[in-house]
């Protein structure tokens, strides 16, 4: 796009204008293009090539040779489809939870507090504040908070909310909780930027026309803030689907919570099954691309991308 703009836009008095301008544009694009080539394209190609490799005839562990083994993908799907399904289920639930928590929060900061910029700034800082502490430490802290001998569990057991043999550590709930918690800021900030620009006169007009607050929200506020919702959900859903920290048994997960990222990690580092790990990564990427493009198309916000 930039290239085309440069190429046709110029037309000066110098000799062969379009051609030389095109060259300049190309020259200026070199850093960007080489960056993409080196840091995006090369690893991607390497990943796809690895995903098609066949085991070495010697049978040694972790040794593979170039091949065209589509079977790697079949094996990966057959063996790990529950993990793929689990990843997207977790991602969906956590994204919805994050949206339900973030929207009122962002609305409060961006609309209700407009008259108090100081408080607004303070609350926004608080939303970002968790980033000042390492992500791993915060996640691990939740494990300690919900540990089986901890105060929270003692309370839940004493009040019979949970049966004595029920624990939170290592359950689906714990992992989804962690995912939601860790990605709330990524949902809140884009929502805030759209809500902050929301024209209150439109809401006034709506109520003048006898729309109830609920109708106003549904017909005015929600459509106007749709771009924020879309970018917020994308910013949370995509990284959550590939997350492996929260679901790892070392952090919040248990034996039955492994997501696709955990399988990729253990395939790469423990079983040294690089082709399967790469095939899973390629599939994760493909599924996310398809889901996102369908989602963006359906919600009619293509111009966002």
């Amino acid at each position, binding site marked *: 796009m930039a290239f085309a703009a440069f190429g046709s836009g110029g037309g000066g008095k110098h000799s062969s204008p379009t051609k030389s301008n095109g060259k300049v544009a190309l020259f200026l694009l070199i850093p960007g293009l080489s960056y993409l080539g080196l840091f995006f394209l090369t690893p991607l190609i390497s990943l796809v090539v690895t995903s098609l490799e066949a085991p070495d005839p010697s049978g040694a562990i*972790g040794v593979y040779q*170039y091949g065209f083994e589509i079977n790697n993908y079949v094996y990966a799907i057959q063996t790990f489809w*529950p993990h793929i399904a689990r990843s997207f289920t977790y991602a969906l639930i956590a994204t919805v939870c994050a949206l339900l928590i973030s929207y009122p929060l962002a609305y409060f900061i961006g609309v209700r507090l407009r008259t108090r910029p100081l408080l607004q700034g303070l609350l926004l800082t608080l939303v970002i504040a968790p980033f000042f502490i390492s992500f791993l430490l915060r996640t691990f802290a939740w494990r300690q908070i919900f540990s089986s001998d901890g105060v929270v569990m003692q309370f839940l057991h004493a009040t019979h909310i949970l049966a004595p*043999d029920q624990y939170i550590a290592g*359950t689906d709930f714990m992992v989804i909780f962690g995912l939601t918690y860790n990605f709330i800021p990524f949902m809140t900030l884009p929502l805030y930027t759209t809500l902050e620009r929301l024209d209150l006169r439109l809401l006034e007009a709506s109520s003048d026309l006898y729309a109830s607050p609920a109708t106003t929200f549904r017909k005015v506020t929600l459509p106007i803030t749709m771009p924020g919702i879309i970018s917020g959900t994308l910013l949370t859903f995509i990284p959550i689907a590939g997350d492996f920290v929260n679901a790892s048994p*070392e952090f919040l997960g*248990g*034996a039955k919570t492994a997501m696709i990222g955990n399988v990729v990690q253990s395939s790469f580092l423990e*079983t040294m099954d690089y082709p399967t790990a790469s095939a899973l990564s390629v599939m994760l990427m493909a599924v996310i691309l398809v889901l996102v493009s369908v989602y963006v198309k359906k919600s009619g916000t293509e111009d966002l991308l």
Partner: protein
Amino acid sequence: MNKPLPEDPMMRQLVQMSRRHQMTRRAALAGAGATAAALALTACSPAGSKGQKQLTPAKDVSATEKTVIWHNWDLYMDEDAKGNHPTLDRFTKETGISVEYKIEIDDNDSYFGKVKDQLALGADIGADVACPTEWMVARWVNNGYVQKFNDANIPNKKNLQPAYLGAEFDPKREYSMPYQGILGGITYNKEAYKKLTGKDAPTSLADLFVPELKGRIGVLKEMRDTIGLILLSQGITLSDPKSLTSDAFMNAIDYFKGKVADLNIKIKGQGYSVDFENGDTVAAIAWSGDTVQMNLSAGREKYGFVIPDSGATITADEFVIPMGATHKANAEALINFYYDPKNAAELAAWVNYVTPVVGAQEEAMKIDPKLASNQLIFPSAEFLANTHAWRSLTPSEEQTFTKAWQSVQVGA
């Protein structure tokens, strides 16, 4: 010129390469570029098709450089209140060789993943001596990744417990020497176990996998310990290929899968002690020496370690000198030092693992008679009869077994 080398193996290689050749600046740049390109290529083909090539040992510069770098596990070295390592300090004093002691090994698989490309090339992995677990050592020895010891430099080799001789991959211990022997058994929180199950202590694996402990049971990520104990409880002999078959293994995996699903068992690496401390785990398959460490940090005898009646797994972490190590003679001096019974006893008093050194028990008697009678450090013959080591696995078995074990870990 004598700046310490960087830790990262690749950077280290680059630095050494540039030092060795003393090139002009331009040539050095070209060289670095070529190396970078070569590294990029190796990165594209993980572990390509190497291993067939015969590797040659790196040049030993021990005579001029009096240092040795040692990769080891956490909680595996004596330490005083100031954080010094008394035995290591004495080694430096006696030999003039300074030791860079690094806690680099978290678990065998990920350590191997970190260094395998350098190993396969015979390049420096950043360590002159490392102590992976025996089955991993077997892989290194079989692939020709390690240097042969010069026995003249290790006169104390005569103190090796004869039980460690005769290993399939290295019958005469020419490439590997045990550092510490490890027992796999059951560690339990005494009070909590009693409260939940009504029993004083677990005596078998059946006492570990009980519904009363649901959600609070742990096992080790190390397949040979966890599945090993299960196989033993099913009457399988781990050293016998006729008894430990693929079917027997898969049987144990299926049995354990069922237990994981019913009892929500946690599968953890070295970090399992945290779970004991915060109460998430009440009883677990664990390593013998760690219990002592956990009791020390709890300040009381809070945890106990038992050998299930069907037997314990036994293995060892072993010294090896990688092909790319440039301080072989220094590393051998270090091994020799820890095979001196006096030093071995002092080390054992702190790490509490099975010592492979003959005569250490007599030395321990002088330090503390209670220590010398501890079966977990100085096991008697009857005690050892109830401990079992795995037979070596073929590469294809290793592949199928680890994949099956992975499927349990990620909970299909």
